[in-house]
C-alpha cells in the first residue's frame, strides 16, 4: 500500500463559536484529481486555506508527504500552488512583471524561460507587457493559473477557479486544467459546477456543514446520478 501524498486527520476549524470544519478525515494519493462540491459556507475554502498553510486548524493534523504542515509550513509551501477567487495578482504590474515578482519569491533559476513557457501555455505571451488591470476576468484567471504553476508545484489547490467566468472562458479554463493535470500533479479543486467538476475529477467529495457527506471515485458516478445526490444533501436548486 502506498503512502498518501496528503493525509487529513480529524481536521477541525472554528472561528469563535462558529465551527466551520467539524472533523475531516481524508487521504489523497499523488497524481489524483479530487473535486470537492458543497454549498456556500460548507467549509471548502477554509479546508483549502488550511491545506495551503494560510490558515491554522483549531485541531487535527494535515500531513504532506508524511510531514505535518504546522511543523514546516515554509518548506511545504514550495510544493503548493493555489488558485482562488482572488487572482493574487497586482493590477498595476504587467503580466510579465507579476510573474517575475513571484519568480523572485520562489527563487526560480531561469525565470524568463519559465515565464515565457507559462504565458505561451495560457495564451497570454503576446499580452505580457500589458497591465493586468486591462485583462478580462477570463484572462486574469488564466494568469492566476500561470502564477500558481510558476514553481511547478506537485500539488495544485483550486478554490472555485471558474467563479465569475462566462461559459466560454470557463470551458477554456477546464481545458487548461485538464492539460496541466496528469499523473504528475495532484489537484484538489472546489467548484459549484457539477458537470465541469466531474469532468476533471478522479474522485468526488461532497462537503456539507463542515463534514464530508459523500466520497467516491468519479468513475463510479455519472452526472445524472450526481445531481440528484447533490440535491439530496444540499437542497434543491443549490447548484449550477
Amino acid at each position: 500500500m502506498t503512502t498518501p501524498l496528503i493525509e487529513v486527520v480529524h481536521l477541525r476549524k472554528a472561528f469563535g463559536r462558529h465551527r466551520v470544519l467539524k472533523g475531516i478525515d481524508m487521504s489523497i494519493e499523488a497524481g489524483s484529481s479530487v473535486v470537492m462540491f458543497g454549498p456556500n459556507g460548507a467549509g471548502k475554502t477554509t479546508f483549502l486555506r488550511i491545506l495551503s498553510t494560510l490558515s491554522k486548524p483549531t485541531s487535527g493534523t494535515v500531513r504532506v508527504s508524511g510531514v505535518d504542515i504546522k511543523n514546516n509550513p515554509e518548506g511545504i509551501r514550495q510544493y503548493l500552488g493555489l488558485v482562488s477567487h482572488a487572482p493574487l495578482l497586482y493590477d498595476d504590474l504587467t503580466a510579465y512583471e507579476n510573474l517575475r515578482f513571484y519568480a523572485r519569491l520562489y527563487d526560480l533559476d531561469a525565470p524568463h524561460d519559465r515565464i515565457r513557457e507559462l504565458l505561451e501555455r495560457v495564451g497570454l505571451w503576446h499580452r505580457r507587457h500589458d497591465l493586468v488591470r486591462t485583462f478580462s476576468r477570463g484572462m486574469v484567471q488564466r494568469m492566476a493559473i500561470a502564477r500558481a504553476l510558476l514553481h511547478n508545484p506537485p500539488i495544485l489547490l483550486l478554490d472555485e477557479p471558474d467563479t465569475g467566468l462566462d461559459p466560454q472562458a470557463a470551458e477554456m479554463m477546464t481545458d487548461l486544467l485538464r492539460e496541466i493535470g496528469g499523473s504528475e500533479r495532484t489537484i484538489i479543486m472546489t467548484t459549484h459546477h457539477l458537470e465541469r467538476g466531474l469532468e476533471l475529477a478522479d474522485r468526488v467529495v461532497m462537503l456539507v456543514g463542515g463534514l464530508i457527506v459523500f466520497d467516491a471515485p468519479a468513475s463510479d458516478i455519472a452526472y445524472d446520478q450526481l445531481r440528484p445526490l447533490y440535491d439530496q444533501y444540499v437542497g434543491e436548486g443549490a447548484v449550477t
Partner: protein
Amino acid sequence: MKRYLSVVWAVLWKDLRIELRSKDIFTSMAVFAVLAVMIFNFAFELRVPDKTVVIPGVLWVTITFSGVLGLGRAFISEKDRGSIAGLLLAPVDRSAIYFGKMLASLIFILVVEAFLLPLMVIFFNTNFISLPLILLLFLGTLGFAAVGTIFSGLAVNTRTREILLPVLLFPVMLPVLMAGIRATIGFMEGDALADMMKWFNLIIFFDILYIVVAYLTFDYVVEE
C-alpha cells in the same frame, strides 16, 4: 542571506513599481502634508511672534499624520486585492516580506518629507534645514515606518482598520516623536550637536526595539 535579501528587494521593487504607476499613496500623503502645513501656517500666523517655536511641532505632526495615510495603504491594498495571500503562500521567511514593505513605506514617507521641508521653509519663511536635521528625520521616520508597518499588518484584518492603525501607532510612537521634536527645537535654537546626542540615542534605541519586535512578531501578526 542572499535569498533573504532577494525577497526583501522583490517586495520593495514591487511596491515601488506599483506606486510609480498608480501614485495613490504619494498623492494622498503629499496633498495631506500641503494642506496641514497651510492650515498650521494660517492658524499660527497671527499669534506666534517667533515662528521657530512652532516649526518643530508642525513638522513632526505633519509627518506623523501624513505618514499614517501611507502606512495604512501598505497592507490595505494587499488585503483588498487579495494579493496578500500570494505573499504569504511564498516559501520564504515572512520577516523578509515585512522588511520589503517597511522599506517601501520608509521611502514613501522620505519622499514626502523631501517635498515637505522646502515647502515649510517657504510657508514659514525660515530656513531651518540642516544636515543633522535630515539625519534626525531619517532616524525618526525609520522608527515610524518600522512600527507602522507591523501595526498596518495587524490592523488590516480588523473591521476598524483605518481607526485602529493611528490608535495603536501614536502611543507607541510617542517617545520617537517627543525626541524628534526636542532635537529639532535644539537645532533651531543653535544647540551643539553633542547636546542633541541624547535625543538621537533615544530615537536609535526605539528604532532598534521596533525593528527587532517587528521581526519577531510579523509571522504571528499576518496569521489568520
